[in-house]
């Protein structure tokens, strides 16, 4: 079990602040991806918070849009928008909805929420970078339940056909989808082999281990002629013992003060 350092606890506190503001949110699905996003934005991606549409930035598409609380927290921390906005999460006039929207929130590349859309879009982005002869890279993160959708596998074949070495897919493999364990709802195994068979260079990593993530993301592309898939082994609800591996915490509404106090307690 990977222990969380202060930066990971801090980012989770930002997420709990937003949950408090909105009274609801996809807690489990956000907490599993905090470290992956942290490493992406701390060390991997090129971007300018004050110029979110800077042409030469790397593109990151959060295909599992329901995990947006983690992305909002990281983007706010990096200065894409004020931290206080997190408190308005899901409120009527807020920019920060329950799923992220391009053109509304600085730093969001694609409006996602409907599953299985991010990888096809990312293939288009990666092709565009190549056609424009740009060095920008494209990263896309899907959930594990999300890759039940066939569109991902259509896009995977295309990414492989086009040898998109500038494209990296990150799968948040927390092994728990909305109803229950992925192995029971629709087993994905052997997952790494599936991506290999679809023509990707594949790595597996502990998605909460900062050092391992830095190492694998620092070594991209894994193959100069193939897209990369990184299977991130994660824990749904990571950081909150009562929520970890518990499908009841995939999404929560009607959060009480007691619930929130319990969450903050986990992060001290």
């Amino acid at each position, binding site marked *: 079990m990977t222990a969380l350092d202060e930066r990971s606890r801090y980012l989770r506190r930002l997420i709990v602040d937003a949950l408090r503001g909105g009274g609801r949110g996809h807690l489990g699905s956000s907490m599993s991806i905090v470290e992956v996003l942290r490493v992406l934005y701390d060390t991997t991606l090129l971007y300018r918070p004050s110029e979110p549409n800077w042409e030469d930035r790397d593109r990151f598409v959060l295909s599992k849009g329901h995990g947006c609380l983690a992305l909002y927290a990281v983007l706010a921390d990096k200065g894409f928008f004020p931290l206080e906005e997190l408190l308005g999460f899901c409120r009527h006039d807020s920019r920060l909805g329950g799923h992220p*929207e*391009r*053109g509304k929130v600085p730093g969001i*590349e*694609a*409006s996602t*929420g*409907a599953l*299985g*859309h991010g*990888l*096809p*879009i*990312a*293939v*288009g*982005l*990666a*092709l*565009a*970078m190549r*056609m*424009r002869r740009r060095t920008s890279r494209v990263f896309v993160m899907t959930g594990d339940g999300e890759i039940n959708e*066939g*569109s991902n596998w*259509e*896009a995977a*074949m*295309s990414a492989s056909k086009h040898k998109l070495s500038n494209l990296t897919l990150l799968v948040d493999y927390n092994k728990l989808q909305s109803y229950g364990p992925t192995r029971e709802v629709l087993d994905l195994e052997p997952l790494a082999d599936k991506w290999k068979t679809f023509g990707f260079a594949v790595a597996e990593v502990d998605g909460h281990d900062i050092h391992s993530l830095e190492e694998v993301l620092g070594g991209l592309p894994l193959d100069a002629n193939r897209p990369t898939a990184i299977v991130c082994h994660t824990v749904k609800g990571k950081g909150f013992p009562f929520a970890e591996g518990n499908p009841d915490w995939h999404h929560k509404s009607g959060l009480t003060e007691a619930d929130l106090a319990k969450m903050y307690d986990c992060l001290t």
Partner: protein
Amino acid sequence: MRKTALDCVHELARQDERVVFVGSDLGPGVLAKMREEFPDRWFMEGVSEQHIVGMAAGLAMEGFIPYVNTIATFLTRRCYEQVAVDLCLHDLPVRLIANGGGGVYAPLGPTHLAIEDIAIMRALPNMTVVAPCDADEMRRLMHATLDWPHPIYIRLAKGGDPVVSESRDVFRLGMSIRLREGRDGLFITTGVMTQTALTAAALLQSDRIEVGVRHVHTIKPLDVERIIEDVATVPAVVTVEEGIVNGGLGSAVLDACSTHATHLLHRISRLGVPDAFPTQYGSQQTMLSHWGLTAEKLAERMRLARRKA
């Protein structure tokens, strides 16, 4: 019309380096010359409409103008969520070139007959829906697509249809064209039904009934002002489309009148495909006869509408 549309993609690609072609496992040799000239901007992807629409969205996000082509039913039904979210929610300039609108693929059965495409595309915010009446108009339309900032659904009809549009008619997306004058009645039409309506109007003229024809190549955004002006001048209006009546051009005209000119609603009746999947095969022509979309039936419907007026 299809050949013209695709040839135009090649022409546009020569004019503008943003133009990209994306096909979904089309027939051999499609746009071979474009492929030769612009290999980096020509894509033949697999049978994967969900993916190609998403991919086109990604290309458009980076400033390209993708023209996506396959059979109409597959480009609408299979990937409706991708069209709604990836194209319309993002409001991206992707062009969907849909082969075989209406009854074109009659021998192939209901999986290939795009009867509700106009209705479901029209329901999407930010989508523009066009159905040109012949190959000449298709050419004018294609050149107008280059700088339109929204997604466009382009409905193709069968090839080799007679040319009825005129080059002096300025083509502007969203602006309909009056092709025939007449004070005794009005056909409001789209796509190749405009040709049939012109023939019907000629038939009626032999009975000394002067019926006008307004061709609505752009069903969305609808040319509300001109349509209402026209409806106000005649006792009877028949809308005609080679598509399901619920939600198509006729519904769009009724919607416009119910918002802006309720007093005109009773003048309008709709002709099109009934709310049912086709059970016959044959040819486009036999399907059109089955649906009552022939010049004779149109004329008959206009006579009836005038009697009721």
